[in-house]
């Protein structure tokens, strides 16, 4: 029987870091695309579709991600699909990220003064031109710090994908613990690895926030 040295533990945990980053990246990109589409729909049709989008946001913000993951995993199976943990995790995390991103960005667009809308429509810009040349360039500046914050949330929340069997950093930690019986060390290292990923992002987000608020 071969035993795990300290270096083996750290090496295996480090090998699973790319999977956490990979899942975070897909969720963030998927969520961004979804969030942007929903944002534009919400601006275009404030009443009928807007309400459905509000429900979607409320549903994903008002329920635990853990339950959402289980529901996606078993729900896909109910439709006769045989979901891999990767498919279920990316789908669920994208929907989750999309809900948070669209809500945040909607707030940013709403924070643009009404005069900007009126001025741009008095210049006979259509909606696409208004958004492209007037509203989004300003809203993006406001939205960058909270978006970075949400990115950190998404990285942390990918850890929950371990419960449906997606092997990323947390799951690897569990597997190694089952072999070495040293949860103190293993989970300590896992926590430090997450910290090493998230903390620089948080600092970057805070720096951006400072940069953008002093401009006013």
């Amino acid at each position, binding site marked *: 029987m071969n035993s795990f040295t300290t270096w083996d533990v750290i090496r295996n945990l480090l090998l699973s870091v790319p999977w956490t980053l990979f899942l975070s990246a897909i969720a963030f990109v998927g969520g961004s695309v979804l969030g942007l589409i929903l944002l534009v729909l919400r601006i275009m049709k404030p009443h009928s579709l807007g309400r459905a989008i509000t429900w979607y946001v409320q549903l994903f913000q008002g329920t635990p991600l853990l*339950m959402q993951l289980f529901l996606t995993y078993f729900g896909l199976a109910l439709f006769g699909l045989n979901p891999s943990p990767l498919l279920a995790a990316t789908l669920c995390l994208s929907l989750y990220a999309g809900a948070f991103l669209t809500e945040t960005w909607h707030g940013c667009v709403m924070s643009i003064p009404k005069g900007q809308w009126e001025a741009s429509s008095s210049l006979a810009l259509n909606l696409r031109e208004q958004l492209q040349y007037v509203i989004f360039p300003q809203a993006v500046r406001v939205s960058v710090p909270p978006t970075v914050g949400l990115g950190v949330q998404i990285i942390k929340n990918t850890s929950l994908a371990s419960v449906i069997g997606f092997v990323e950093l*947390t799951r690897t930690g569990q597997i190694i613990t089952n072999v070495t019986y040293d949860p103190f060390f293993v989970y300590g290292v896992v926590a430090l690895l997450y910290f090493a990923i998230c903390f620089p992002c948080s600092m970057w987000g805070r720096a951006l926030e400072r940069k953008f608020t002093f401009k006013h």
Partner: protein
Amino acid sequence: MSVLDFSAVVQAWPLFLEGLWLTCLLTAVSCLLGTLLGAACAWGRIQGPIWLKAGLACYVELFRNTPFIIQIFFIFFGVASVGFKMSAIPASLIALVLNLGAYACEIIRAGIEATPKGQIEAAQSLALSRWQIFTRVLIAPALARVWPALVSQLVIIMLASSVCSQISAEEVSYAANFVAGKTFRSFEAFMVVTACYLVLAIFLRKLLLWIGPRFVFGRMKF
């Protein structure tokens, strides 16, 4: 036979009810203690000695930049393995309180730092001590200022308590896991519990927004 069959879930209703009760209990205790811890840490980070400021900064950053599931695993499995054994519910509570404390600290600190400087100077000119200034001048308006953000965080903690099922604390998502494992009606069980969480989240938000101005920062006296 229909695709969705709730009979197995309905039969297990006492299990879900017990789970819901524990979820509410975990939420209530952790909200209360976590907010207190957050306020205390906010005081420490603003007025404490330098070593306390540094220690609290480390605590806050450590808990805000690691996933909750790892925190709870570390406390339940890790700390237990070096000699501090505890059962699932105390471990869940400690994890929830420490997690909320870190977030609440930053939220409350932001509220305190937004206090106009004149307020503190006025209090100082009345010869109030630093403790008196904090409790009588700073904390109540600060809480009022950040209450919506704090309420959101408390709702997030309620939702995060579902992760406690992973260390077999028998709250409502544990009940769902249990029923799912026993009857294979996984989707139905998780659907019911998700609906419960949604209702709880909406209710908790309304409740806290109602309580805040009336009982928390409305009539704060020390």
